[in-house]
């Protein structure tokens, strides 16, 4: 792919909400726009951060949208050489037979680090370098984003600190080790329930303190503008490849694309280049947890289904759909998968749902665990528990996804083995293997 081609594709990708300006004599320049997706988006952050956000918006516009100094070319090259792109679009033979529909898997689990998260982490750490920043901070839920950021930071020689909820540290030990081994500091967050929501708040506090030399690598299509749009652009490589690959392999577009949604970065990445294809159904699978109801008494939503059940509000820098109580207090979410365990969702997804372009669906913890075992047994791919939600959905609704469907395999499940075994043992999962030999201690 020539750099010219890359440049114009980058511009096209941003085309839906970025605007073109006629630069004085130098051809069209793409601008970052105002970061509003319909009623959603915006920049709800402390004033101390606003100059950094303006600086970031400017850098996003120059380097990412307009390929200044060859940023996009370097990003693409590193995604290929360090990251292992392109990832395959693989036909899932047994699932296709089982469901009597053509199932294609977009294998983001094969990306370096084992999840789609590297696309964004590499893009942002590289951008921070172009901006002359000296320190990287990030938050992480499942640890995948933290791991990807730690890897990108090590790769590009930047010091990195990752905030992670205490509860998630316990659920995701392998990723904690991976971050540390890559030279990052991992700082436990003990406030609230000790999950992703608290880790994001804590990282914003660090950023507000060290904003002058620090870049906050946000982990999903959430936060203040330009993050939701910029992270989407970095992740859009998923659907850029998948669209070409599916046309190549099947001669046409798919009937549907299915992706799990926590903050929604693999979701937006998998959807973006299909948004203009009206015939392609876009299905965002949220964590239904153990129930879709919110317990107003305890302030807990035993789910993370903010697109399906949330209401409009402002959290972590953006107006979006949220799990909140009647007063606007954010409620605690729940999912068996740390990476989906978040009370908010990206503003662009919220908007696409309002526009009926994306259909929000959800899958309970139990069905996700079934999906985890099924994909492992039938295709030899152990998915992340986040990803397993997409397969839980496919199982329950395979007659609704059309003749050709792409499921985004957002990540691999190595990090989740302990959790999967524990959670399986607590339930009656019909397709689970006999795990009794593990009783009484896995470690």
């Amino acid at each position: 792919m020539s750099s010219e081609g890359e440049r114009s594709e980058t511009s096209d990708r941003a085309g839906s909400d970025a605007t073109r300006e006629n630069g004085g004599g130098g051809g069209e320049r793409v601008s970052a726009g105002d970061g509003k997706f319909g009623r959603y988006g915006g920049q709800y952050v402390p004033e101390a951060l606003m100059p950094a956000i303006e600086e970031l918006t400017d850098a996003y516009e120059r380097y990412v949208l307009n390929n200044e100094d060859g940023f996009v070319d370097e990003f693409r090259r590193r995604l290929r050489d360090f990251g292992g792109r392109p990832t395959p679009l693989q036909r899932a033979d047994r699932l296709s037979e089982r469901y009597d529909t053509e199932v294609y898997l977009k294998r983001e689990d094969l990306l370096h680090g084992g999840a789609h998260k590297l696309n964004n982490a590499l893009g942002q750490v590289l951008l921070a370098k172009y901006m002359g920043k000296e320190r990287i901070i990030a938050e992480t839920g499942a640890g995948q984003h933290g791991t990807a950021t730690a890897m990108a930071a090590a790769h590009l020689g930047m010091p990195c600190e990752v905030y992670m909820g205490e509860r998630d540290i316990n659920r995701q030990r392998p990723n904690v080790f991976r971050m540390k081994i890559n030279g990052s500091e991992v700082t436990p967050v003990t406030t609230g329930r000790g999950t992703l929501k608290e880790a994001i708040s804590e990282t914003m506090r660090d950023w507000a303190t060290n904003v002058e030399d620090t870049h906050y690598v946000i982990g999903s299509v959430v936060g203040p503008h330009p993050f939701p749009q910029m992270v989407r652009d970095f992740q859009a490589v998923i659907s850029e490849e998948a669209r070409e690959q599916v046309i190549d392999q099947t001669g046409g577009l798919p009937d549907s694309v299915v992706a799990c949604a926590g903050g929604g970065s693999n979701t937006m990445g998998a959807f973006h280049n299909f948004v203009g294809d009206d015939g392609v159904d876009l299905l965002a699978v949220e964590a239904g947890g153990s129930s879709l109801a919110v317990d107003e008494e305890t302030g807990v939503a035993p789910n993370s289904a903010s697109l399906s059940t949330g209401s409009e509000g402002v959290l972590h820098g953006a107006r979006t759909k949220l799990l909140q109580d009647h007063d606007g207090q954010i409620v605690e979410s729940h999912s068996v998968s740390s990476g989906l365990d978040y009370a908010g969702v990206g503003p662009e997804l919220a908007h696409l749902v309002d526009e009926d372009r994306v259909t929000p669906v959800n899958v309970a913890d139990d069905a996700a665990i079934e999906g985890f075992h099924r994909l492992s047994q039938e295709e030899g791919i152990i998915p992340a528990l986040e990803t397993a939600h997409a397969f839980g959905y496919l199982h329950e609704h395979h007659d609704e996804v059309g003749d050709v469907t792409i499921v985004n395999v957002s990540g691999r499940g190595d990090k989740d083995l302990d959790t999967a075994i524990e959670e399986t043992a607590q339930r009656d999962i019909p397709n689970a293997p006999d795990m009794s030999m593990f009783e009484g201690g896995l470690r």
Partner: protein
Amino acid sequence: MTGHRSSEAIAAAFADGPAFVPYLAVGDPDYESSQAYVEALAAGGADVIELGLPFSEPIAEGPTIQNAVVRALEAGMTPTRFFEFVADLDVDVPLVCMTYYNLIYQYGDEQGPRPFVERAAEVGISGFVVPDLPAEEAGPLREACDEFGLDLVSIVAPTTGAERLKKLVDVSSGYLYVQARLGVTGASSSVSDQTGESLARLADVDLPKAVGFGISSGEQAATVVEAGADGVIVGSALVDIVAEGHANDEPTEAVADRLETKARELKQGALEGYGRRTPAPEGTSD
């Protein structure tokens, strides 16, 4: 330099001498004690009181205030209770509501800030500080404040440059909350030397400047006022007293007494700092 009229109550509070502006999280550790604590601050010489309405994700607060927010939420504080609290208060000092935008936005039947502002005006609130609402997003709240005659106090950070400052001043009234250092709220042992610089940059702005973030003693209050501040904002150092009293199970009156004493120290410090100021050249001081 500001297009919005300040409410009379707040303008009066800054009219003569330096203002002492304490902050407490409302409902910490419970409704009744919290009322006694706010009243103690008034008795100790507060000129304006910032009442924190607890939000579950206080991203601009350090650990001290975060913990206070958790205590208050666990004790059942809600926006509805907050308004009752304010209506019940027996103080003769202008009150500013400090909270995060989502609570303002969700209040009432329609989404948007108007019902919250209307209710705040009814119970006697004079203005707002909303740490997650930069000038870019302040329009709707500013409009509602104008409708009901309330102030919108903006935070000016050390990172705020000249262009942003203009934007901020355009939506502000009452006073400017000058953040003494980068970071989140929290008491510290020394006052940042960024303060003098920040005040110098604000010299032309026709609004009182109250400095906050990190002030914890009368001496620090004096330093800040001597450097030109029109007021000092003190939160964490007072919340620490509440937290300590709660941790040691002290009676409310004992904690209230200590708050009042601390308030006197801070107010006294502010006055001393004012006295130490070298007389400003004609026309540059208020």
